[in-house]
């Protein structure tokens, strides 16, 4: 019988939750890498027993852990992330130029076509690739040539936080960076261009329509429609029907269009989920009500999903990598909060239950369905 495995990265370690496919009863692991920040944990779609974890602290730097037995045992792999060639500079908070400096790995994305290949999105923003299961990492430096001198850190740092791999075209890679925007390569990472046409950042950029500098928080797509992309921007929820060439706003009737994560239903490419928070300076749900919003029309018209979620005095947040969907016939959704609660829905968001609570601040959530 298949098992559902939820991989949770937190500020003080990682956790693995498991359930059968009913998703009614969950087992929570002991903390993995206790005391370390774990920005992301993700399994390979080709070999679900292979899982990568990005582990770091300010004291001891970055480590990458790999498990080949579904999280039972772990070994460190390569942790040298050396920028390629001249390091160069990017914009600093005050507008001056600042040298690129590696800080941490934000996101690990195992490849869809080769089990030994995995991508890493890092801060300061760059994309690295390993073709030997994480033992060694090479930068794809052409990305930083896409006007890297104009990129600047968001409040959380200048991070490459989102990596979308095309399900059938291994040459197409889409990434998102705060605060630079979304970028696409159609040649396996050899060249890149900004895909930010239609984004408007009225309060963040001198030119609100600039091609580079937008604070993109997260991107999502359903592999069945890889040209249909959804974006949660700093402000605004956006959609593209042509692989990011053009974007249009779909915020519609959301109570706020500020937020961090965005997710797409596993079987309905036009069903999309966001978790609005009040504003850029008040990172908590409007009215103290934790609501997931679902659009079944590809945006524009949104319904609040509240059953099982706290509807008073809730002032938590959900970070950009902390929402995921499973691939079971009735799509499951999962998200973790900055106050350490992990919520799950086994019916597309209609009903929610807490499957773990009082964890450390949740940084990331991923889910696997293991045969």
């Amino acid at each position: 019988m298949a098992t559902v495995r939820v991989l949770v990265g937190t500020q003080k370690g990682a956790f693995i939750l498991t359930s059968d496919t009913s998703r009614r009863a969950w087992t929570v692991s002991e903390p993995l890498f206790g005391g370390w920040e774990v920005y992301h944990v993700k399994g390979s779609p080709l070999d679900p027993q292979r899982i990568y974890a990005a582990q770091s602290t300010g004291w001891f730097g970055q480590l990458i852990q790999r498990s080949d037995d579904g999280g039972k045992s772990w070994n460190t792999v390569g942790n040298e992330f050396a920028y390629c060639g001249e390091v160069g500079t990017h914009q600093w908070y005050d507008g001056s130029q600042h040298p690129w400096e590696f800080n941490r790995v934000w996101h690990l994305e195992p490849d869809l076509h080769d089990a030994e290949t995995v991508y890493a999105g890092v801060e300061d923003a760059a994309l690295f690739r390993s073709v030997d299961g994480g033992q060694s990492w090479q930068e794809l430096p052409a990305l930083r040539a896409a006007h890297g001198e104009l990129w600047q850190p968001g409040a959380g740092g200048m991070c490459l936080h989102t990596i979308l791999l095309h399900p059938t075209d291994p040459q197409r890679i889409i990434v998102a960076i705060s605060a630079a925007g979304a970028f696409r390569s159609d040649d396996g990472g050899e060249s890149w261009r900004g895909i930010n046409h239609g984004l408007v950042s009225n309060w963040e950029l001198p030119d609100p329509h600039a091609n580079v500098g937008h604070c993109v928080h997260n991107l999502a797509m359903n592999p069945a429609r890889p040209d249909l992309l959804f974006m949660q921007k700093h402000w605004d929820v956006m959609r593209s029907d042509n692989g990011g060439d053009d974007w249009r706003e779909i915020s519609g009737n959301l109570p706020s269009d500020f937020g961090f994560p965005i997710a797409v239903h596993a079987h309905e490419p036009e069903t999309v989920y966001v978790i609005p928070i009040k504003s850029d300076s008040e990172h908590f749900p409007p009215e103290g009500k934790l609501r997931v919003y679902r659009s079944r029309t590809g945006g524009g018209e949104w319904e609040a999903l509240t059953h099982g979620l706290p509807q008073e005095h809730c002032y938590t947040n959900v970070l950009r990598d902390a929402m995921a969907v499973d691939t079971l016939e009735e799509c499951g959704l999962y998200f973790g909060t900055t106050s350490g609660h992990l919520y799950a829905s086994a019916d597309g968001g209609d009903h929610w239950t807490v499957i773990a609570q009082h964890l450390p601040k949740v940084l990331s959530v991923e889910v696997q369905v293991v045969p």
Partner: protein
Amino acid sequence: MIRVRLPMHLRNLAGVAREIELEVPAPVTISAVLDLLERDYPALRGTLRRYDTGERRPFIRFFAGGEDISHDPTDRPLPAAVVDAKEHLLIIGAMAGG
């Protein structure tokens, strides 16, 4: 032979007990000790000093003979008491935070 103590997280990472004994050829310096530690315990690579510059990580501190030697040149010989294993070389995660 010298005796080295690591902070808890790095002991767990390297899979070692509280104390590590190392045979370090003369001259016994911080650089030589770190080279051997990273050779014998590859999981420690990058955790004590940066890959790109070789510099000590800012929150790593070295103590020998009761003195903070973190800012000493890394090719300076360690005190005789450490070289003779009468005292430990302490590698410490600095106190930081609130």
